């Protein structure tokens, strides 16, 4: 049973109007891992998560969570899934304590110690009203409400959106806390690559509705390489390179990023007769930016407009 993926999608597809936002998604999330789901804004991450939770129906394909079809999640399965949304929306008129009591009434495995612990960690007063809480404090409350039922699977949709660094750090700590139990899984989407790097085992990248990456985190970084080519004069035009991502041209330098750099690629680049050819290590963020940015030669923003000195 523990060999089954906790999340599985097959050909999951969704359109909004005529636009395809998720196209033929095939994903499997193993039990016990921390799975990061990244992509640019509007690439379909939230939509995918909503489909996983049965809040949105796919146009084609299926999704199943904890072995149960997403379209028919039973109450027992829902009790085992924690869901945290990016807006951290709650009923504004409730107090922190009322929110806790409200949720506790529904979940059989509610642990009041966890709830109080997270509340305390974020410095929330029990009688404070939700509408008076800052975004970070609301996030803390939502986190407390999500963690207290001891969920097997935690699904987080961009939970760090708009949070200050302190709140964000608390969020990451909570995710690490959950990994204490090896059968707990976390599936989350984020734009904070620093947090992703800290906490994720696996990475999946949605490139505008299409899944293009699904691998262990370090494999992604290992597979996206930047090569620096130095030339005597102006760098020559770039030929076709397998797995090409981006190139940045400057006075006598060409920096090329590509995927799966190997001997073939090196041979092609050496044909340009550079003075030197060096592999430059990339941070995860840079790797991500060049992977998801526009393909081709890239220049800095507004670099061709004159700045009067």
């Amino acid at each position, binding site marked *: 049973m523990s060999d089954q993926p906790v999340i599985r999608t097959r050909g999951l597809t969704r359109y909004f109007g005529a636009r395809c936002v998720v196209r033929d998604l095939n994903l499997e999330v193993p039990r016990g891992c*921390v799975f990061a789901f990244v992509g640019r804004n509007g690439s379909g991450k939230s939509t995918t998560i909503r489909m996983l939770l049965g809040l949105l129906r796919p146009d084609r394909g299926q999704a199943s969570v904890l072995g149960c079809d997403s379209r028919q999640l039973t109450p027992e399965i829902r009790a085992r899934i924690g869901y945290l949304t990016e807006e951290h929306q709650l009923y504004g008129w409730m107090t922190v304590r009322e929110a806790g009591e409200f949720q506790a009434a529904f979940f059989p495995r509610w642990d009041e110690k966890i709830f109080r612990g997270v509340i305390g960690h974020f410095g929330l007063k029990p009688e404070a009203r939700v509408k008076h809480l800052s975004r970070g404090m609301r996030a803390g409350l939502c986190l407390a409400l999500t963690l207290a039922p001891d969920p097997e699977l935690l699904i987080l949709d961009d939970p760090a959106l708009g949070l200050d660094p302190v709140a964000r750090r608390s969020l990451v*700590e909570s995710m690490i806390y959950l990994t204490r139990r090896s059968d707990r899984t976390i599936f989350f989407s984020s734009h904070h690559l620093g947090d992703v790097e800290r906490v994720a085992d696996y990475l999946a990248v949605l490139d505008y509705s299409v899944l293009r990456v699904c691998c262990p985190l370090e494999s992604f970084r290992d597979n996206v390489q930047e090569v620096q080519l130095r030339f005597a004069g102006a760098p020559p035009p770039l030929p076709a390179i397998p797995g090409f991502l981006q190139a940045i041209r400057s006075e006598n330098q060409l920096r090329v990023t590509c995927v799966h750099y190997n001997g073939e690629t090196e041979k092609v680049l050496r044909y340009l007769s550079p003075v030197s050819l060096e592999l430059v290590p990339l941070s*995860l963020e840079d790797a991500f930016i060049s992977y998801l940015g526009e393909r081709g030669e890239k220049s800095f923003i507004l670099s061709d407009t004159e700045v009067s000195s």
Partner: protein
Amino acid sequence: MDLIININPGSSVPIYKQITEQVRLAAATGKLQVTDQLPSVRALAESLVVNPNTVARAYADLAREGLIETRPGRGVFVIHKRKVLAREEGRRRIEPLMNTLISEGLAMNFTPDELKEAFEKKLSQWKNEKGPKQ
């Protein structure tokens, strides 16, 4: 044990590598002695706020190098190196460090002799601090 590890997620060096490098450095500079105990995987993960699997991978690499050893039920300990790093590997590691030292020193208009002198002074300083163990 006063082992301080700082990791920097934005760097081009993976986190697990940062951990292994810092542990290695600590062992090399004597901050970590043989038979010292390292924090458990979970303890270190929580203190660094990283995924325990990352710490586990770092510890696994260090164990493969022969620097540390996990004793079930007791913890993670620094051990005497069973495997010596190949000379070649060692040279490869020192090369960039030497480049840095020399280039910076020359840039600041130190003479090669001055540099040599400073280097030897530092070496003997360390020898004295560490004692005959090293």
